[in-house]
């Protein structure tokens, strides 16, 4: 078994128009900048992007929004300082937006990866974000039924990987990357360093079973 790919272009080649793509990262950390640039180059459009934020400035997801490749964004915090391309597309009515509380977003992704049909959470009960959803009182507390969230592809950033697809992370670059690896049919990780040796099993954060391909990309803008 060898999940290593020679370059970023090979890693994003299977992504088709209309695909649902999870993209790891929170703020500026743990974002697969190289894979996003390769996806922009590859040209797939009509994408649904699932990510915590919707890009900032002229980097990362913002480049996909700027180029008009995104039809829908599912995220918790689209509006950040400098999220100009998200705001421009949203105000022009050119993209659909689904806002999900951040913990519900993580857990919906985890539920998909864990083979669950959803879960009841107290988060959002009684608010706009629970409208139209099934509710239940559990131990006296109002809960909302939330559905699993899966994707065709996940684009991830990790610190190190071995040829089996095992991943380790650095600091807060971990964020959504491990759960997204679980929830996508085809998860690709861009890593700062591909290791010739197997990672120490005690240091593996995301086991290789959740990762279909790894590619080295040492650059970090």
């Amino acid at each position, binding site marked *: 078994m060898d999940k290593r790919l020679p370059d970023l272009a090979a890693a994003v080649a299977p992504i088709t128009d209309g695909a649902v793509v999870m993209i790891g990262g*929170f*703020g*500026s*950390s*743990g974002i697969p900048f190289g894979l996003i640039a390769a996806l922009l180059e590859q040209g797939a459009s009509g994408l649904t992007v699932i990510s*915590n934020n919707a890009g900032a400035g002229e980097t990362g997801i913002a480049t996909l929004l700027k180029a008009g490749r995104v039809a829908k964004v599912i995220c*918790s*915090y*689209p*509006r*950040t*300082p400098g999220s100009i391309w*998200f*705001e421009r597309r*949203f*105000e022009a009515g050119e993209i659909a*937006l689904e*806002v*999900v*509380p*951040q*913990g*519900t977003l*993580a*857990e919906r*992704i*985890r539920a998909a990866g864990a083979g669950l049909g959803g879960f009841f*959470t*107290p*988060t*959002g*009960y*009684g*608010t*706009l*974000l629970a409208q139209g959803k099934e509710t239940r009182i559990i131990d006296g507390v109002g809960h909302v039924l939330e559905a699993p969230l899966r994707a065709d592809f996940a684009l991830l950033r990790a610190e190190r990987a071995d040829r089996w697809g095992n991943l380790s*992370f*650095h*600091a*807060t*670059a*971990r*964020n*959504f*990357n*491990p*759960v997204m690896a679980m929830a996508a049919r085809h998860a690709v990780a861009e890593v700062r360093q591909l290791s010739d040796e197997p990672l120490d099993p005690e240091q593996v*954060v995301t086991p290789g079973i959740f990762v279909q391909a790894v590619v080295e990309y040492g650059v*970090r803008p």
Partner: protein
Amino acid sequence: MISLSDNALAARVARDIPDGSYVNLGIGKPTHVSAFLPEGREVIYHSENGILGVGPTPPAGQEDVELIDASKRFVTAVPGAAYFEHADSFAMMRGGHIDIAVLGAYQVAENGDLANWATLDEKYPPAVGGAMDLVVGVPTILVMMRHVNRDGSPKLLRRCTFPLTGLGVVSRIYTDLAVLDVTPEGFRLVELTPGNSLSEVQALTGAPILHPMPT
């Protein structure tokens, strides 16, 4: 009317954070609370993006680009810190493991309802982040905010007019003018910023303020 500066308000909130607490500081002004923690207390700060043990801002040139807090600022990790992924981070928040959260607010109602994620402006895209998860899972929610809006209208109300973040979740509100508890009877005065009178503060508040319980 005496109005506390942002730093003085952060210091006032910090006085009420007990030794040994696990605390989440919301984005914006609440992040300043940690700088004013009284000497001798050890508090572990949680950041939703996967750190327990958030430390101070690193010196210029020593930033780790992959080590940020929920406000997306560069931070450090203190001895005893831990990193984890998002589902675990929100299990800590939703699962009742964090003791205190300090949040900003657009509006707080006398029944403890909190509005801090969306306005009524449809052109302004809403952004909820981790606020709804925090308020359902953290037992003590402290709000830190200006007492009134820029136009002088009250932020403390009988009922919120903006979309809610959580229902009946706020424990205490710290403003530049006063500290108030949320009680089953409504807002109750804890203290006035020295120099202010209750009648002055009441005039800037959209719901009745009860006097402190006689002791």
